[in-house]
């Protein structure tokens, strides 16, 4: 890429808005996923019996089942949230930057 184009994009305020908004959001979601997963794993490692409690009085199903399936669903949900915001905000900014500099 030519140096002057790089310079033009880097001095465009929308580029900075895009980079800062997207990286903040992406790292926030990544950390959230790590937190959810490691909370799950560390509960199992340190006090697994919490997850072995019955879901309601007399139930065979345990708390662990909705929790485990919940972690799976949260992974899907987080990717959905990212897509939603990327479509609405990041792609719009990218388009505007391209229109302004190209």
């Amino acid at each position, binding site marked *: 890429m030519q140096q002057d184009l790089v310079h033009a994009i880097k001095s465009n305020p929308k*580029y900075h808005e895009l980079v800062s908004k997207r990286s903040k959001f992406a790292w926030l979601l990544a950390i959230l996923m790590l937190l959810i997963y490691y909370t799950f794993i560390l509960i199992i490692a340190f006090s697994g019996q919490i997850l072995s409690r019955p879901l309601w009085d007399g139930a065979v199903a345990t708390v*662990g089942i909705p929790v485990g399936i919940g972690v799976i669903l949260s992974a899907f949900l987080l*990717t959905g949230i990212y897509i939603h915001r990327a479509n609405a905000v990041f792609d719009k900014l990218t388009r505007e930057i391209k229109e302004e500099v190209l």
Partner: protein
Amino acid sequence: MSFCRYVLPPLLLLLLILAGGGVLAAGDPGGATPRESLNIPAIIMFLVFVTGTLGITYWAAQRTKTAKDFYTAGGGITGFQNGLAIAGDYMSAASFLGISGLVFLNGYDGLIYSVGFLVGWPIIMFLIAEQLRNLGKYTYADVVSYRFQRVQMRTLASTAALVVVILYLIAQMVGAGKLIEILFGLPYNYAVIIVGVLIVMYVTFGGMLATTWVQIIKAILLLSGATVIAFGALYMASDGSMNPEVMFKKATDIHDKGGAIMGPGTLVTNPIEAISLGLALMFGTAGLPHILMRFFTVGNAIEARKSVFYATGWIGYFYILTFLMGFSAIVLLTGNPEYMDPNAVGGIKGGQNMAAVNLAHAVGGNLLLGFISAVAFATILAVVAGLTLAGASAISHDLYANVFAHGRIDEQQEVRMSKIATISLGVIAILLGIVFEEQNVAFLVGLAFAVAASANFPILLMSIYYGKMTTRGAMLGGWLGLVSASLLVLLGPTVWQEILGFDAPIFPYKNPALFSMTIAFLGIWIGSMLDHSENAKQEHAAFAAQDVRCQTGIGAEGAASH
């Protein structure tokens, strides 16, 4: 490619003869070793699959002319299609049969594994999917050599890629041979040769386009088959109420471990081991070359992002199905002499991994059993084809075209080289499959994930995000990660103690990723910090242009023109 018109039909014929020969050999009552009985519906359905996919290969061969076609299907795959293909790569026979078998034996613990395998996907989406698409061309080595010393970086990246591919290939080939032996009654060596020959045909003639469509078709077949089995079995195991609670109640009544199967057991007890395994599962996925390669098959970063969304959904759904299958297998198979074998691993016919297959028979008789056996075979073919293509592109695009020839060869030579590499990898895969038949290969997938998480992933992540990284830092961290992950697995309990038979392991943990990833990232950071060379200054300066392309996609490789 007109010559495939002349080469493909005779090859197909040869293959059918080979398969037929295998069937006859298996059916021969005078055979030296007792084989499982011949599974006719399975073989018919499998032949339909093979004929169909070879038809696709023929179609794809006529559309595969340039290097871009060969490596990335011309960049014309949509996000939805790619999501299915990625899910297909990830839903290997090992995860389909292995996880449902784990649930069958231990209950809840199987779910812990599934969760670990899945949560890497959102991380891939947030941190590398779009960036990879914007910076790369054919392989992830394109990304990590973007602003660095090309020869050194490509050598590192392609070596790490090949190590992961070969480890994975061995595990897949041995698993394939054993599985096909049980499911189809084909002798082990025939099975391994058929897999090798078929994948070489898919990849050399049809390139990424055929490999992707084979994977998509298999993913659809596997998802539908698993859906029918899981819900059919839930219906039967819950006396028609479709209420999981009824099934859980019956499962705890009949299982040896009783109520213990409803909560975490012995799989995760040591926190260090748990954290380390989690790291390998999460970040290893983001370093698997055959998965990373899929991000170059879509037109742009938006489609790349979409593919992860679909892939995460399908994979998550699939893992919930394997969980249901494992539990209903406890209810429907335990105590039924038709499916149980007290001498086999896990007490089930064919061993622990056959829970889902036996369950298919319990739900839908021979027809569903045949279908799911054919799908399991197809799964192996599709995953091995993807691996072979990733390995071949590391050889032809990275090592041959860019390291040895310094980019001075034309595209046709590179494509020819990739086909030679594919055939060689096919032969190597067959040989390794035969050599490792009697070996315990289960640890190889774990090792592949550890290497991917400790070598491929750190250099990839840091080349995208760490502007101060230099070639020297990447070399130090990348090679240290590769070597330390391999060494720590070798010295750990799985290899040192269980396979080599020493009294005590030198390294106490089964999963080295926590340590080897730390070593890799520290190596990259320290090596880059101490690098004050002229090269380092140029590489710092080149980050600005890389980052602009990475963030906006301006200058990125475009989609197919045709």
